[in-house]
């Protein structure tokens, strides 16, 4: 009798636990018969947050039987959170994703929906998406993501300051250094700033520098985890170039983030900033400086590609278990109308044909858009291009270089070892 009581209590406790563990199975259909779509993006900041909130409202009005739950966190946190979510059953139905190795990692979870059939079924929609931008989301001929925004990175300069000091737009790396020296003499003690606390900002620099100084064939080999070695001397040269550039960034750069650096540029305090085209509108809104931009200049005598443009698309991915209405929402998000409105609101360029025109972007962005559409080759962001463990060695190494705690040789040695560990 007593024993039965004992076991029944035990059983009761256990079942409550087990029940608690299983309770979130059926969250795709809510009580009032609406289909719920979980939407996760990485822009809790303006103007995109409001834009997507607005679009969600619009979509729910058009489709009263669909309810969309939205959640968002910022860049670096987003990377971490989505990695955690993809390993669980709580993966959102539709979410933002970068291309290349970031996308590949997510795909390897086998929880991402292949979209080939979706693309083939609705040519009217899919043919409007610029073809070349799909490559970063395609692995073994299967496409797992729909590219949406396109981007590139360039040096932006304050036209007034350059004119005042008679500085020409630099065409080579040596000219860039000469220009920075001249600016320093003119009283700008930190002519170039960057938010070095954001490791991705460092990876953007390093990625482009490596494009310039390392033989493209070597890069292809090293960007593939299976064959990566990182033994080329060019990497040392590249890290030295970065080290030299950080000497123009001053102490302040090691303690601020990219947004702070951008605001300094927009306020006219800093003449040069390495920045994404996506940020053009933000600079225009934050200040009234007149600016132009130039691609990262050629490094004379180096083996790399002197004109390759760094920048990769971002897009949307869909969970394998997503309700079928999600696809419709995906098409809504990537339709020409949404895209045109998106670029008008945000300023970032997109991969939908006909959605970037003189009407919704300023001349600078249109110039950038042409540069992106016509670039001979585009290189993905460095932290998306190589394994994250190797990228981390370079990114943290970059921080240490800026604070003079390490040498290019040590970083490369560590990267070689890490590349070896990943095989």
């Amino acid at each position: 009798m007593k024993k039965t009581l004992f076991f029944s209590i035990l059983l009761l406790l256990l079942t409550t636990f087990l029940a608690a563990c299983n309770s979130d199975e059926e969250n795709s259909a809510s009580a009032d018969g609406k289909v719920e779509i979980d939407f996760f993006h990485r822009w809790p900041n303006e103007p995109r947050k409001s834009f997507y909130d607005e679009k969600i409202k619009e979509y729910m009005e058009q489709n009263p039987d669909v309810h969309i739950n939205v959640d968002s966190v910022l860049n670096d946190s987003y990377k971490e959170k989505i990695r955690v979510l993809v390993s669980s059953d709580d993966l959102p139905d539709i979410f933002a994703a970068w291309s290349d190795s970031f996308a590949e990692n997510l795909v390897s979870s086998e929880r991402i929906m292949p979209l080939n059939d979706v693309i083939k079924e609705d040519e009217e929609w899919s043919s409007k998406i610029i073809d070349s931008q799909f490559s970063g989301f395609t692995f073994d001929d299967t496409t797992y993501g729909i590219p949406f925004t396109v981007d590139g990175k360039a040096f932006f300069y304050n036209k007034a300051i350059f004119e005042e000091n008679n500085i020409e737009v630099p065409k080579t790396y040596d000219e860039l250094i000469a220009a920075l020296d001249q600016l320093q003499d003119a009283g700008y003690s930190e002519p170039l700033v960057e938010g070095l606390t954001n490791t991705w900002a460092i990876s953007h620099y390093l990625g482009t520098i490596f494009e310039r100084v390392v033989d493209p064939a070597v890069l292809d080999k090293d960007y593939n985890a299976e064959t990566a070695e990182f033994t080329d001397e060019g990497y040392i040269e590249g890290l030295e170039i970065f080290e030299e550039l950080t000497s123009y960034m001053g102490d302040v750069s090691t303690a601020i983030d990219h947004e702070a650096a951008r605001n300094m540029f927009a306020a006219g305090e800093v003449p040069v900033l390495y920045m994404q085209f996506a940020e053009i509108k933000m600079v225009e809104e934050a200040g009234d400086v007149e600016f132009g931009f130039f691609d990262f200049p050629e490094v004379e005598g180096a083996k790399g590609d002197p004109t390759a443009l760094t920048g990769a698309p971002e897009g949307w991915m869909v969970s394998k278990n997503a309700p079928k209405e999600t696809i419709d929402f995906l098409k809504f998000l990537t339709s020409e109308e949404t895209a045109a409105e998106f670029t008008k609101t945000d300023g970032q360029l997109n991969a939908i044909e006909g959605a970037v025109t003189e009407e919704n972007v300023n001349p600078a962005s249109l110039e950038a858009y042409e540069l992106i559409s016509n670039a001979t080759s585009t290189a993905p962001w460095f932290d998306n291009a190589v394994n994250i463990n190797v990228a981390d060695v370079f990114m943290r190494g970059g921080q240490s270089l800026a604070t003079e705690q390490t040498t290019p040789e040590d970083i490369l040695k560590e990267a070689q070892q890490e590349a070896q560990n990943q095989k």
Partner: protein
Amino acid sequence: MKEGAGMIAKRNRIVPILFLLPSLLFLGIFIYMPLVQNFYNSFFNFSVFSPTKEFIGFSAFEQLFSDKIVMTALINNIKYAVISVVFQVAFALVLATILEDKLFRRIAPLLRVVYFIPVMISISVIALLFGFIYNPQMGLLNSFLELIGLGNLAVPWLGNATTSIYAVIAMSQWQSIGFITMLFIVAIQKIPKELYEAAEIDGAGKIRQFFNITVPQVKETLFVNMLITITGAMLVFNEPYILTNGGPGTSSMTLSVYMYQQGFFKDNMGYASAVATLIFIVTAIFALVQIKVSGTGKDE
């Protein structure tokens, strides 16, 4: 039905076990099981993305001992512990004594609240706040230094590899000192007043009273507080994660931040488990040594 004496004795044995059962169950499921599982995981190499695990034996631990970053992190944790013991335990005891002194009787309640407020603010809020204080351009700290003519001492506190960890530690002290002080105040209030009166009659000054009465009387609390601060310092995560994320480079890395980055940023779950095991062993050793030395529970 008639129950024999044996039956009653048996029931009396079962009842206490029944009372203990829920807590045992909770501890088992939420503490001990994950601990064992973590130890088990550290023998594998696996990714959160893939369901397969590869057995690698002790090689994660071998890697652990040759990893320079683990060494940096461990040293940072030890710095954290030492500084925390000095400020949070030693200084908090002095602070508590002063607050309990007759001279401060009137404003002591107000000061207690002032010191305790930081404890009640969320650590994320505090970290963001200190981010502004340490900001190199418009930060309060550098502006203050410039104001009093020490502008040459102003550095980007969080961006400088030599100062970043200390800047993080300093914030922790500011936050936690109130909590420890409060524990000491409670302990001091329990000391019989006669002891102080007798000492005063004997001509003992305040400092003599502090060392000969207060310190021995709060010994138990002293050890408990040391245990709290040292294990806390070994586990510290929020402060460095929010303020610097271990940077610049790896200069303000702590073991917990490193574990998190290995697991969720670099996707080496097995290695992260090994780091977690290391953290467990280090804290367990510290706790055991302290309990042994203090002989908690055997006094009186």
